[in-house]
């Protein structure tokens, strides 16, 4: 039964024509797969894939106190963010846990665009408004942007002919505003796959044209449309966080092993006191990666045991199509975080052996 309240991106018909299987994801009717997640995953690792990620939320922050508001609300340091640069960060609760994780684009000295999780966008908007300093404008912009992600070693060659923006010179986690495929766009060298690639924001009514031009340019490079299933396995191989699974309002930034986005010395921000305490006393648990030793696939939420005691759950677990292993993430007591520690995953009442391994599971070899 079709849910009448479900939201559709501008590309809904195109996905259906391409034979995508559609699912309800955070209230959006989204393509979970086209040719199949294995093929799509390998296309991104070896050539390129294109994802419709228009469900992602966008919030705009501006005004004289815009920067200070973000300094107060997020744990990374906005003063280290140049104009035209992107920063991965988190909106933190007073406990140092996650309201959300997000990408911050600095458009001008006191003007920012935030890309947030679809499932959290309303909560984030409320949270930011409630906690913003005076003289800060917070604008809900999700309805004004579509977003496409083109990811993979061929992404640059595919997109370069479509824009005057110098994509080749663009560094990882930087962006530019300009014309792309004949429309106004923001193009950033970012992504959620562990691969080189770009994300393109444009007006929703321009999305179809942009998608079509990218698909045409990508044809000779083996570009393939890719769905949420491949997006999930790609991001897990690269150990990128999924809100609601790996991080949420019960896990702190330090427990999630994201100390690198946690700039405790930058000055006060929401959650800083708790995070300093946790840093000083040491976290009691840590998000670690594991791979299965025995046959079996660890799935999200399966119980995890250490020496016969239940210690947590698999926060994300899946086959890793490129690595050809079965991998996952789980929070382990800090005393057990060391590489090689053996754990058991409970798979349909069977205990199946796994071991802690270094992360990210997959790291691309830079081409330059």
């Amino acid at each position, binding site marked *: 039964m079709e849910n009448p309240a479900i939201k559709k991106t501008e590309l809904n018909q195109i996905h259906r024509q391409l034979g995508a299987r559609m699912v309800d994801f955070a209230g959006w009717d989204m393509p*979970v*797969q086209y040719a*199949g*997640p*294995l*093929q799509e995953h390998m296309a991104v690792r070896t050539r390129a894939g294109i994802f419709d990620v228009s469900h992602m939320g966008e919030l705009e922050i501006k005004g004289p106190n815009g920067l200070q508001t973000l300094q107060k609300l997020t744990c990374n340091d906005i003063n280290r963010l140049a104009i035209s640069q992107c920063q991965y960060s988190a909106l933190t609760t007073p406990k140092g846990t996650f309201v959300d994780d997000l990408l911050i684009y600095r458009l001008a000295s006191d003007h920012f665009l935030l890309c947030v999780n679809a499932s959290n966008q309303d909560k984030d908007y409320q949270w930011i408004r409630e906690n913003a300093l005076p003289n800060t404008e917070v604008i809900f912009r999700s309805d004004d942007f579509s977003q496409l992600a083109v990811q993979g070693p061929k992404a640059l060659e595919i997109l370069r002919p479509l824009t005057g923006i110098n994509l080749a010179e663009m560094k990882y986690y930087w962006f530019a505003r300009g014309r792309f495929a004949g429309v106004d766009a923001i193009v950033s060298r970012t992504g959620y796959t562990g691969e080189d690639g770009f994300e393109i924001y444009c007006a929703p009514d321009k999305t179809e044209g942009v998608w079509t031009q990218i698909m045409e340019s990508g044809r000779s490079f083996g570009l393939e449309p890719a769905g949420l*299933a491949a997006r999930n396995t790609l991001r897990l191989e690269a150990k990128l966080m999924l809100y609601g699974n790996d991080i949420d309002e019960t896990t702190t930034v330090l427990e999630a092993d994201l100390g690198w986005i946690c700039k405790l010395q930058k000055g006060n921000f929401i959650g800083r006191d708790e995070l300093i305490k946790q840093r000083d006393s040491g976290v009691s648990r840590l998000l670690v990666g594991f791979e299965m030793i025995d*046959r*079996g696939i660890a799935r999200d939420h399966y119980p995890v045991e250490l020496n016969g005691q239940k210690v947590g759950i698999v926060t994300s677990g899946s086959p890793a199509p490129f690595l050809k292993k079965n991998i996952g993430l789980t929070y382990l007591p800090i005393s057990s975080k060391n590489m090689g520690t053996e754990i058991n995953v409970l798979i349909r009442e069977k205990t199946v052996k796994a071991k802690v391994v270094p992360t990210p599971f997959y790291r691309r070899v830079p081409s330059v």
Partner: protein
Amino acid sequence: MYPEDNLYSKDHEWILVQDNVGTIGITDYAQHELGDVVYVDLPEVGDTFDANEPLGSVESVKAVSEVFCPVGGEVIEVNSKLEESPELINESPHQKAWMVKIRLMNPEELKELLSAEEYEEYIQEQSSS
């Protein structure tokens, strides 16, 4: 598409019975719904199952699907090739990718299953609902 000698369950298993031995696998419809199969969990020879009890599972990148024993029996052979080559389930669900052979405990239970024609009608209803 659906071999007429087989019987089918509403859980999308097929069974071919010869001399009180049933060969069991999942149907083409089931493999298509599941997508690329990456893992197969099989029982061991000697395990016994009642009708509709899970005997193993088939997993795609995205999902786990339990395989139910369409009728009760004792496992006498398993297709261990599937552990190395789970993709056979997608390529040849009704032939190469048989999963187990069982000795039937109660052949009367076969009456509960669908013929090829009935099964095809059943999956058409499933797809249109």
